[in-house]
């Protein structure tokens, strides 16, 4: 326990951001070394999965378009943040579709 908590405390004080690998929502500009192209491709992939499940959220594609524009304008941190957000939304939409594939039945009106 001591070793681990020392590590975490060190994390907090010395390396802001190092604990963020545990959640996928990175802060703008922080992407564990991934390039914009990698994140953008991962977001497109996640979007394709959600599309196949016929469950895309309405803002996701716009975020991805904005990410592309930001990247072209050289606003790299913003571009990465937007693409990351699009990827997370697409993943959540897929999770929603998977969960709902069964739980919708619990909502059906019955006697």
């Amino acid at each position, binding site marked *: 326990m001591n070793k*681990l*908590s020392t590590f975490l405390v060190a994390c907090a004080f010395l390396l802001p951001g190092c*604990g963020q690998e545990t959640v996928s929502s990175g802060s703008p500009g922080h992407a564990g070394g991934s390039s914009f192209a990698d994140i953008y491709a991962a977001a497109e992939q996640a979007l394709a999965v959600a599309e196949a499940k016929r469950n895309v959220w309405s803002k996701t594609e716009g975020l991805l378009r904005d990410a592309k524009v930001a990247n072209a304008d050289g606003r790299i941190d913003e571009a990465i943040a937007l693409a990351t*957000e699009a990827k997370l939304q697409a993943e*959540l939409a897929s999770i929603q579709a998977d969960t709902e594939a069964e739980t919708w039945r619990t*909502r059906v009106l019955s006697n």
Partner: protein
Amino acid sequence: MRRILIISLLASLIGVQPGLADDDPSPDATTRGQAIAFDRNKGNCLACHAIEGGELAGNYGPPLLLMKVRFPERVDLRAQIWDAAVNDPATRMPPYGRHRILTEEEIDLVVDFIRTL
């Protein structure tokens, strides 16, 4: 114990531990929180809840009154906004945090505002 410590340390690192937040928000924070709560493209809370100072409110959900009585702990109100389905799977309230409808910072500001009601 060990697990709880790790979780709370991790949570404080990524800033999702509202219990540790200052419970005496600045007037600026509550004003910004109100703006987010009333914005149709953000919280849009008035779509469902009557709120003092807001117009054309719906009654889809209960009026937001006596919020510190209903939610004595800030953390519980924040959890309700973040994902109301945890307490009630049949809830119709959108999961503002879980579905990333608002950012964590925006949720904190909305909580600041709602706690003044």
